[in-house]
């Protein structure tokens, strides 16, 4: 007796294909989800005890990154300024602003302001700010246009593929040391050549290759080795 119709054969075959497709789709969705801002918080501003605006302080007032992040050039940690650094100016400016009450309170009582960490690498990654700064990686190469961020967000996914993009080809991003803290730095082009050490550079790759030599970068094999970052 024939229970199933002949067409069932086609459905059975199709379902084999469907299983493969659905599994593939599920894999794709999971991987994309893992890369998405939903997981990485890329470009998502986080709530903070004080809505501190980098845009106002950097672009509006012209304060250098290092005024507050004092240890970025010689430590692995860039440094979150103590409340006293805020009070250097805010002891006299905006002294009645309600927004700044947590800062004044922290200064009066000695309790720390509890900021939410924005650029937070996983703990199994060794990261050192100073080596990047001193080899010519600009602040905004990783942190993005901080001078245009009213509220802080992480500009990149901070995923390993993102780190490796530069570690595999540092010449794509390196800049002269005196330009590292320039938030509006533009890579050299034919219209805007960059002169350095008596040479004129019109494209980034040539400049990058020159800086790899000048700043004594280790080889790509060295800086893409697992134990460079996973110690």
């Amino acid at each position, binding site marked *: 007796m024939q229970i199933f119709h002949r067409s069932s054969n086609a459905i059975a075959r199709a379902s084999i294909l469907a299983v493969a497709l659905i599994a593939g789709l*599920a*894999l794709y969705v*999971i*991987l994309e*989800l*893992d890369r998405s801002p939903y*997981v990485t918080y890329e470009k998502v501003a986080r709530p903070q005890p004080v809505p501190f605006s980098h845009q106002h302080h*950097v*672009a*509006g*007032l*012209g*304060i*250098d*990154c*290092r*005024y507050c992040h*004092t240890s970025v050039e010689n430590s*692995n*940690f860039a*440094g*979150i300024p*103590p409340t*006293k*650094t805020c*009070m*250097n*100016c805010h*002891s*006299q*400016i905006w002294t009645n602003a309600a927004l700044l009450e947590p800062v004044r309170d922290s200064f009066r009582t000695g*309790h*720390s302001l*509890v900021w939410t*960490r924005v650029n937070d690498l*996983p*703990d*199994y990654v060794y990261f050192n700010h100073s080596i990047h700064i001193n080899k010519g990686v600009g602040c905004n190469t990783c942190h993005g246009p901080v*001078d245009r961020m009213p509220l802080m967000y992480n500009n990149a996914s901070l995923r390993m593929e993102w780190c490796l993009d530069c570690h595999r080809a540092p010449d794509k991003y390196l800049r002269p040391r005196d*330009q590292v*803290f*320039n*938030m*509006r730095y*533009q890579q050299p082009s034919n219209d*805007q*050549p960059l002169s350095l050490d008596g040479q004129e550079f019109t494209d980034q790759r040539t400049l990058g290759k020159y800086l790899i030599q000048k700043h004594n970068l280790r080889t790509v094999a060295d800086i893409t080795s697992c134990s460079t970052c996973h110690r």
Partner: protein
Amino acid sequence: MLKLRKFSGLGLLAVLALAGCRQDMHDQPRFKPLAKSDFYADLRSERPQAEGTVARGQYHEDTYFYSGKIGSDPGDYMPFPVTEDVLARGQQRFNIYCAPCHSRVGDGNGMIVQRGYRHPPSYHIDRLRKAPIGYFFDVMTNGFGAMPDYSAQVPPRDRWCIAAYIRALQLSQNATSADVPQGQKIPSDNLVFRGEPGSGATPPEMAPAEQASEKGEGTK
């Protein structure tokens, strides 16, 4: 063989499940710089130095280097030779930590002052031109009047570099034509922006007008 396949399928599922969430290894229970800790009453993982102890590098044998004073009076010599590197370092640090109020030329019209901070005296007044160099170091170290101290933000050697640079600024504002090297044009060519002006945090790239127009950028 079939069993192995089953297991690899399970393994794949496990990997996928883990990939979708943050793992414990992301946030390991150890102290990270300036991070919060529930272990201590003040919630800080950074501990203050134990009282009555002196850490390496904290014993300040060379008192002049760390205070700028001889006895109780400011001294008038640099504790190390002033080279071009020292002045360059001083200029860089001055522009980071001092220029927000004192302005890049030291006249005290910096951006923070324009926003309401009390106006500091210009470096180019007689009193400060005659002040010994150790005085500037002492003010940076301990603050003076409305100015807070910068001992936490600027290490001692950098403070000396800045003091040397302040002297250079004072000279620059009172230079005469005799100070100009032979063959240099006075006034020198106007500088023009090259490309986009800086964000303010860093000086925009400038080039003499002549050189810029040669490249066809002109004085737009």
